[in-house]
């Protein structure tokens, strides 16, 4: 039987190193790892510091030129998104649009209820009595007729305007319009422009539309009458209005004036008021 061979000297030395230095080696490895981490951190900070001014500059350029750079692509993307996700878009927009519609409806209902209140406050006015008699004979309830009358078109402004100068010769307003001279001038400018733009002789501009307003123009030789009407202008109302304008001009012949003065304006404005103030609300 052979005895255990004696380990070689270098093996013995390695074992001794293990015993004496194992702890130190472990600590060194940990320190080395920490050193690498710190090095990486320092480098990252420096890099960021150097890059920061360029980044800020680029960011501000991007913000400034965003519409030019991405507007087209964004537009396309939004169009595609709307086309492909209609229900989601509707869900997102519904609360906003719903609020807007609600606000508009509330304002309109308030306006109508104010008009009805106004009529109810004066139950013995000529117009209220007329509606009651109409209700009695037609069988339609007074309330229905009252509601119908609030939806009637009505004259808001009425101008008699000198054709050549565009100066207002007389003016009747329900709303105390603050700049009748400017409105009359611009109306005349638009009228002349349209009538000359299409190079048609003896053609006249009869109507202009602006949202819920319609402006009826009735041209005579030296002047024209412009009536601003709010509401649903139907053929019957328009015909009655044009007939009343004719009637007015027969009753108060308007001649070409040497000069439009405050006196001539006030006189004609009063005549307009007397003739047209009962025209609205079905009082015709």
């Amino acid at each position, binding site marked *: 039987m052979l005895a255990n061979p004696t380990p070689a000297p270098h093996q013995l030395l390695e074992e001794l190193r293990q015993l004496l230095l194992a702890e130190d080696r472990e600590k060194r490895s940990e320190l080395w790892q920490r050193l690498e981490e710190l090095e990486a951190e320092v480098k990252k900070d420096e890099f960021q510091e150097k890059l920061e001014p360029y980044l800020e500059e680029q960011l501000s350029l991007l913000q400034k030129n965003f519409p030019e750079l991405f507007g087209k692509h964004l537009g396309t993307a939004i169009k595609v998104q709307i086309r492909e996700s209609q229900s989601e878009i509707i869900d997102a927009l519904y609360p906003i649009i719903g609020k807007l519609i609600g606000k508009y409806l509330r304002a309109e209902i308030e306006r109508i209820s104010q008009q009805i209140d106004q009529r109810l406050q004066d139950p013995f006015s000529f117009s209220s009595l007329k509606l009651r008699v109409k209700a009695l004979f037609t069988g339609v309830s007074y309330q229905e007729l009252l509601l119908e009358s609030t939806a009637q078109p009505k004259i808001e402004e009425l101008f008699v305007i*000198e054709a*050549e*100068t*565009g*100066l*207002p010769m007389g003016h009747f307003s329900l709303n105390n319009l603050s*700049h009748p*001279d*400017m409105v009359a*001038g*611009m109306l005349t*400018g638009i009228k*002349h*422009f349209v*009538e*000359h733009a299409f190079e048609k002789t003896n053609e006249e501009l009869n109507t202009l539309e602006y949202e819920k307003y319609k402006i009826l123009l009735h041209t005579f030789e030296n002047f024209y009458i412009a009536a601003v009407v709010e509401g649903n202008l139907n053929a019957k109302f328009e015909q009655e209005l044009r007939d009343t304008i004719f009637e007015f001009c027969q009753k108060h012949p308007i001649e070409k004036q*040497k*000069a*439009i*003065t*405050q006196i001539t*304006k006030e006189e004609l404005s009063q005549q307009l008021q007397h003739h047209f103030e009962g025209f609205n609300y079905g009082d015709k």
Partner: protein
Amino acid sequence: MEISKKVAILGSHAVGKTSLISRFVEQKFPEKYLTTIGLKVDKKTVKLDKDVVDLVIWDIAGQDEIASIPHYYLNGCSGYIFVVDLTRPSTYENIQSQLLMLRGILRDAEVVIAANKVDLIESEEEQQEILHNISITPDFCTSAKTGEHVDDIFHKLAEKMISVHESR
């Protein structure tokens, strides 16, 4: 007597017609230049010694050629202000023929000539030299920016129109 008169403000493009009106009507000078498209109507009341004149001012888009101004905008004008730009000779080089043409269109209308942008002229000598080159002496050198003589052009026009009106 309170009387209404239609007046027009005419001249080449960018001579400062709209700015003169803004200064006169609103006491403001628009810093940003916006070209007038078509027409804009403004109003201001001028009080004279005996009379009050409501000036309804038609600011007609600038045209370098008088013949290009739509004549229907000029119908019934009792007076007009013709504006030139002191810094641009092209706006006053043909002033005589332009005014002659306007007199043919606006036979009974009174005229006041305004040489505008005087604030841009550096010295009195330079101003005199430019005025010497304008074949008709302007009534006033104006500045819509500083307000210099702006009220005067409208007052003078109102006075001329009233004087003609009373003599008829």
